[in-house]
Each structure stands twice: as C-alpha cells, then as structure tokens.
C-alpha cells in the first residue's frame, strides 16, 4: 500500500476534509472512489467501456487497498459471486456495461430481494444487435424495476462522489439495498475532467454486517429455519402473502432511502432557473448537453430552465411535480432509443401532454445542443398552432 489510510466518519471524508483538484478520467475516478471506500473485495469481467476502471481496481488490490480481487468467468457469475461475498458480510464492488448487464440480469432482483448493500457501477453502452460499444443507456430502462437504487452521474465529479455516497446510502440499516451508479460510457469513463478529491489517506469506516437488517450467512448467529412455509413456490395463501410482503418491504426500503439521498446528494434532482415556463429535463450526460442548449436559448431570450435528475430509483416524483407545476413545456433529451426517462416523467406529471419525449440519440452519437434547441422550437410551434 503506497498510503497508510485512516478510517474516518463519512461526513469528514465527504464534506469536511479539504479537497484538491485532479485532472482524471471517469475510470480513474472509480479507482479514486474505491480507494477511499474501504472495500473488501472486487470481482471483474472485462467489457468496453468498463474494463479500464476494473484494471485500476486490480492495481488497488495489488497495492493492498483491497483484500481480494479476481477475474471471473462471465457477468452472471460475477454478480452471483459478488452476491455470495456480500452474503458472507463483505463490502464489495464490481462494474459492467451493456451486454454484461443483460447477461447478469437475473442477479439484480436477487441482490435487492436479499437486501444487500452491493455497489455496482454501470458504464452504459449499446446492446446488440446491431452491435455497438458506444455510449447509450438503454440498459437503465431495463433495470428500473429490479429493486436496486439507481443514481445517474452527469460527469466525472458526480461519478466519484456518487460511488462513495452509494456505500453510505446502501448500508443504512433502514435501506440496505444495492445501489447502481450509472454513467454514459466513454463520455464519462474516457474523458478527463478536473475533479475535486478528498485526501487519499482517509477512508470510510469498515462495513459492519451486524447492522444488516437480515442475518449474514456466516453461522455466527443461531441457525433457524428460514421459514416454516417457504417463500418459495408453495401454493398457499400464507406463502403468497409472505412473498408479497417481502417485496413490499424492498420497495419501502427504497422509499426510506430518499432522506439519505437528500442528505448526501443534496436532493434527488437539481433545478436551474426554477421559474421558467420551458424545461429541459434530463439525466446523465444529456444534462450537460441540455446545459449547453440552455445557454443559447437564454441568449435568444427564451424562458428556459434545466432539471437534472440524479436519482432514477427512487424517482423524484414530488420534486418533479413541484419543479414543473407552472411549466408549459418539458423536453426530455435521452441517450437511448426507448425513451425510458420520458416515460417515467410522463407517468409522474399531470397534464403530461406538456412532455416531449425527445430528442433521442443512440448508436454512439452525441446529442448536439442544436437538436435540443430545435426540439423546443418545434414543440413551441406545435403548441402555438394548437392555440
């Protein structure tokens, strides 16, 4: 280990210690976050654009920051082994991208259903066919109902902060759920940005599995029959009810995360120009593109604001209703073909004909600000014609 680290309270590491600038990529930010997160073990399987970050986690292990690390056989096995390590009481980390996410899909509801505080980074990319390794976040739309909490980072700074904060939120006894920290691949993982980092001789306090709301599988607590009537597939009312109430508790735990998200992230969303009549609402790097569009639109004299959605699960329902209560138009630019964020927003707001589900860009292209600007102009023209 090139640094002797001192475990400190989260507030000291995150908020009180003095930060210094570093010009780093998103992959390097993952390494910097995990270095300070006091992680026991990580498991990796290569896929672009995730690989580089997990190489760097391997370097951390070689230097002694992590106690165990290995390359597993496929992403389903990675997520299964991470599940096992977490059931054994370890603080764990892994990451994947697009096809890896889909390959591992069966495990995500298992993490949530087992109430495990696993932190996983998703460096989102296209899923086949036609094949694409380029940025695209359709996989997020496929994970919305897995029970895990989902944070969407806009940039490298967000990525660093959200990963560290993810452990704190995931491990709260009243939450104790997996947290996925998502970024749009390449745009965040492979670009350099000045990031403010706390000192690297500090790290989070270790995970204490005794705070878990469910027993750790280590035979250190008295064995008891998990249930007399298994939650499994017995066909009777009691087992249905037990199964349903367990699910409800997973959902309730995610609801209880809201206050912790507010504390650590300063809210589930951020609003620029809150009194505007027109909003660009986005998550991830679409927020940055939206911000570029916003400058031009403001210069042109339009009354436009920006809503950056940071938490996708739980979704900022009340915050979004409040932020858009006087809005006449809400444009939702996205990096995927399905438009999952626009659907979420439409399902959240009254008078959802105010919501324009686009522009949507996929296949690897960026969202030019002009595309967002013309989407707004087109929508305003349509609204005027209707009047």
């Amino acid at each position, binding site marked *: 280990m090139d640094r002797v680290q001192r475990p400190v309270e989260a507030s000291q590491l995150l908020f009180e210690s003095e930060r210094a600038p570093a010009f780093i990529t998103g992959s390097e930010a993952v390494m910097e976050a995990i270095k300070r997160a006091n992680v*026991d*073990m990580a*498991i990796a399987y290569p896929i672009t654009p995730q690989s580089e970050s997990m190489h760097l986690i391997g370097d951390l292990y070689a230097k002694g920051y992590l*106690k*165990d690390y*290995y390359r*597993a*056989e*496929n992403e*389903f*096995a*990675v997520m*299964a*082994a*991470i*599940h*096992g*390590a*977490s*059931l*054994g*009481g*370890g603080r*764990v980390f892994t990451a994947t991208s697009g096809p890896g996410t889909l390959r591992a899909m*069966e*495990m995500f509801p*298992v993490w949530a259903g087992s109430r495990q505080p696993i932190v996983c980074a998703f460096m989102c990319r296209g899923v086949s066919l036609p094949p694409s390794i380029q940025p695209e976040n359709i996989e997020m739309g496929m994970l919305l109902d897995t029970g895990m909490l989902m944070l969407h980072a806009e940039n490298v700074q967000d990525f660093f902060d959200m990963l560290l904060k993810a452990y704190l939120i995931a491990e709260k006894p009243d939450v104790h759920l997996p947290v996925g920290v998502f970024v749009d691949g390449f745009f965040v993982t492979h670009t350099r940005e000045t990031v403010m980092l706390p000192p690297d001789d500090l790290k989070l306090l270790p995970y204490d*599995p005794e705070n878990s709301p469910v*027993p750790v*599988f*280590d*035979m*250190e*607590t*008295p*064995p*008891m*029959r*998990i*249930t*007399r009537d*298994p*939650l*499994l597939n*017995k066909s009777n009312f009691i087992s249905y009810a037990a199964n349903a109430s367990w699910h409800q508790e997973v959902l309730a735990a995610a609801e209880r995360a809201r206050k912790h998200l507010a504390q650590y992230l300063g809210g589930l969303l951020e609003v620029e120009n809150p009194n505007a009549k027109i909003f660009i609402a986005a998550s991830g790097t679409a927020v940055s593109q939206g911000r570029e569009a916003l400058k031009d639109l403001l210069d042109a004299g339009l009354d436009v604001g920006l809503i950056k959605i940071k938490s996708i699960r739980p979704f900022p329902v009340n915050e979004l209703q409040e932020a858009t209560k006087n809005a006449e138009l809400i444009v939702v630019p996205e990096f995927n073909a399905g438009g999952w964020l626009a659907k979420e927003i439409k399902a959240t707001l009254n008078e959802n004909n105010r919501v324009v589900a686009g522009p949507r860009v996929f296949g690897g292209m960026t969202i030019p600000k002009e595309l967002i600007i013309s989407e707004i102009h087109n929508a305003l023209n349509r609204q005027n014609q209707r009047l």
Partner: protein
Amino acid sequence: MNKSIFKITPCFEDIMPDEYKELVESDPFGKGLGVSQLGTYKELLEEHPLCAGCGLALSLRLILASLPNPEDTVIVGSTGCSALAFPQVALHNIHSVFGNQNAVASGLKRALKLRFPDKVKDVVVIAGDGATADIGLDMVMQSWFRCENITTIMLDNEAYANTGGQESGMSPQGTVLNMAPKGKKFPKISMPEIARESGCAYVAAISPAQPKRLEKMVRRAILTAREVGPSYVQIFSPCPTNYKFKPQEMVARIKQREKEGFFKSKEYITTEAQEYLAGLEEGKKDE
C-alpha cells in the same frame, strides 16, 4: 459459531417451536457426531416436504449428519427439489437462483476467509444434477479451475425432477423422459472424471445405500477443500416420482443399477490430498 448465543431467552420457551427447542437441547454442534449416532440427537433437517422414497432426501440427511463442523458450515444450494427442503435445514443456507451456486460459493468462501482469518468456515455446495452438470456447469468447472476452497456435492437423480421429470445431462442414454420423447440421445455426463481433470483434489461417487462410506467421502471432501483444493462428491439419489417406481424400492433400485454396472462408487484423490487426509486420519486414530 459461538454456542453460548444459541439458547432460548428465559420465559420464551413456550412460544418457541418444538423442533427449535429440541435443537437447542440435543443439537449436533461441536460434538463430533456422525451417521452412526443418527437417532440419538436432533437432525439438522426437519419435516422436509420431499416425496416419499425420495433418494435426495435420504442423501441430504446423510450429508448433514456427515459434516465435520456443522457449527461452522454454510451451505449454498440451487433451485430444484432440494431447495424445498433447505428452508427446513438448521444451518445458514443460501438459495440464490438456478445454476449459480458455485459462483455464489466462491464469493462467500472468500468473504468468510477475510472476515474469519483464524477460523475454518466450510462452504459446501449441494445442488441437483441439472444445476451442476447442465445450467451451472461453466461456473462449477470455473470454480474448480480457480482452485476455490469449496466442496461441491451433486444430488444426482438423473433428471430435472422439480420441473416434472425432464431429461438432464446426467440421465442415462436411451431413457424416455419429458423433453426426450424418443429417449436420451447421448450418454450420462462423466462428471467425476471432469472434476478430476478440472482441478479437484478429491472426487467421489457414492449413494445413500452405503451410508458409512458416504459419510467418509463427504468428510474427506470437506476436509480436502479446507487445505488442499476443491472437491466433488456425486451422490446417486434415484427419484421414484419421475422414474415411476415404488417409494420403498429406492435403495433396491440403487443396488440393481449397481449390479447392472450402470452405477459405480468411485474415489479419485490427488497425492497431495492423500497425504493430507492420511495425516488427519492418522491423527484421529492416535486420539
């Protein structure tokens, strides 16, 4: 496990289930009990819901009675008939999803090693033939290639029993089963040999018709996994429900298959494991 935490809080005795009270009063933890003492202590499996004459249920009882350290053993199961019995097992046991048991066990064993560096925590996988030789085969073999310190036990009933008697890779060639309406077209998978060639330090095939031998093999497998390397035990556990024979004929069925030359007990031990086990077994005789 610290046994002092394993007791009933005074005045709660009357609301604890009977079988839990029995477990507290006559548990097998830390007492070095085994198959020969069955009937004199509380078994770790209580009131399982498996069919009458289920070979797998008998195998499971014998495996649980054979564990060298039940008080520090965590079991990883898989989906299948045995998953219906595991909620009734008085050990920490994990059911994740179908086929991922050896990947889960790999992560679990590593985490337990980190958390308990001075204590042995045995991680034992117990799963069906479909889970082990078909859907989970890559993860089973990869855990062997990686030399994970875990024991893998297959409950081989030669079919996907839980989903209604479909062909598995472990079904004998020619057998007519669901999804093999014209009979299985390829031979039973040679899992013991695959295990031997894939890095297992100890490999055995056995049936519950020989309980003492089964006990010895399970113990050897678990002890080997602690120090030497991964181990594999395949237990032939015929299924009366799907192979359509009478429940009381289960053991006779094993013996018949043995006579016909279709089932053979086997043991493959690497030199290293042999030396290690000889040392342990020698030490035991001295006691």
